[in-house]
């Protein structure tokens, strides 16, 4: 038992953490929330580490370790609301006889994620009425629902009775302006997913729309946000302070997320991987095991999860966010120097 306590205590000294106790959340006694530390860029670079945990075209998880919460939060906020993306902004409705109203239809179209890389486009000037090939993408959507001539007998399924009764995002057609056709390909600018249902129709209903997509940022409208989610959480840590065996070990296992606590061949519980625990504090319900654990989170270990909407890969989105903050500082400095 003493062996457990010593190793647990020495572990607690290493990193700043918040303790999740039964009735409160508490800082370590010697932890003043980074407030007294003097700023030193050298110290920052020495402590700061990045670990990439998983990454593909749509989703990414990485750790920022040894960073101030203010910076982590700034990067998160930038990804959500200041990294640009392309989205449909104006819809000219030539004909709409479907049951979905013009404004609702326009809004639905705006929310369709486009594959177009915003880094290849410029912001459109506020007062411009005509878009150019550098700041605008034009699409059209022209669909008419009709009766299916070659009907299968006795079938009442709409897909057998009608043609074009479902309008999908894959039916949106791109119309290159100027030199665009030689610079971009249709699959690189159109909707990310072809199976997004836009509207349902019946014979006689018709859509004839002209769509204009521009570059924008998430703080203007959420449709311009390049991420589905961008969030961080602190790394959980679970420390067992004494031996837990037998039925108590089983009970302990059920108190945490699956895979967090495992039981070895001697029936002893051990912490296998605390990373994906949800920090529920369910252990404190059971008097027989609540003294056996110390729950905490590491205060300067941020686990970022970035989920892209499809235009840019998540690592590019994070890089862009950092660049935006850097350029902001640069611009402001320049302005202050000319003051």
């Amino acid at each position, binding site marked *: 038992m003493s062996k457990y306590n010593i190793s647990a205590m020495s572990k607690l000294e290493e990193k700043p953490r918040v303790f999740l106790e039964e009735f409160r959340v508490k800082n370590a006694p010697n932890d003043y929330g980074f407030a007294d530390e*003097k700023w030193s860029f050298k110290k920052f670079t020495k402590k700061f580490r990045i670990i990439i945990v998983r990454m593909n075209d749509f989703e990414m998880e990485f750790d920022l370790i040894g960073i101030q919460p203010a*910076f982590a939060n*700034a990067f998160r906020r930038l990804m959500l609301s200041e990294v640009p993306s392309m989205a449909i902004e104006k819809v000219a409705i030539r004909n709409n006889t479907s049951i979905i109203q013009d404004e609702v239809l326009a809004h639905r179209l705006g929310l369709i994620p486009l594959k177009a890389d915003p880094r290849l486009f410029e912001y459109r000037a506020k007062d411009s009425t005509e878009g150019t090939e550098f700041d605008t993408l034009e699409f059209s959507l022209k669909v008419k629902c009709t009766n299916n001539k070659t009907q299968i007998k006795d079938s009442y399924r709409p897909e057998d009775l009608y043609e074009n009764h479902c309008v999908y995002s894959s039916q949106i057609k791109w119309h290159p302006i100027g030199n665009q056709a030689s610079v971009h390909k249709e699959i690189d600018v159109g909707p990310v997913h072809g199976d997004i249902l836009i509207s349902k129709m019946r014979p006689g209903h018709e859509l004839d729309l002209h769509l204009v997509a521009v570059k924008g940022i998430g703080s203007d409208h959420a449709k311009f946000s390049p991420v589905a989610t961008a969030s961080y959480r602190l790394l959980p840590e679970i420390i067992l302070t004494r031996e837990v065996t037998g039925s108590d070990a089983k009970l302990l296992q059920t108190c945490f997320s699956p895979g967090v606590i495992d039981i070895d061949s001697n029936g002893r519980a051990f912490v296998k991987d605390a990373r994906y625990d949800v920090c529920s504090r369910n252990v404190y319900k059971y008097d027989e095991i609540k003294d056996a654990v110390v729950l905490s989170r590491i205060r300067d270990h941020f686990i970022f999860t970035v989920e892209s909407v499809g235009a840019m890969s998540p690592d590019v989105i994070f*890089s862009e966010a950092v660049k935006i903050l*850097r350029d902001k*500082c*640069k611009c402001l*400095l320049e302005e202050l*120097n000319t003051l």
Partner: protein
Amino acid sequence: MKISELPGDEDSGLTNRTYVFQNESHTLGNALKCIISRYEDVVFCGYTVPHPAESKMHFRIQAKGTPALDILKRGLKDLEKVCDHTLELFEKEVKAFQKS
């Protein structure tokens, strides 16, 4: 102009100032405050977004000896350095991850 000075500090020397940032919010405000409040010669540093409907951020600096403007410049420079370092490290890690 993105930055202006709030009047009212004319009598207290150059060390106390409130700057108004147009089109900025908590993103820049908190990150900058985090750096500047840790400087040796800064007595007080804080920021506020006076009204959520106006995209303005007020940034207050009170210092001993050093002019507030110099401190603001130093803070922006340091934040820029932090960004550069983060970017460099992140891109290095991404490359290493893609190789493995």
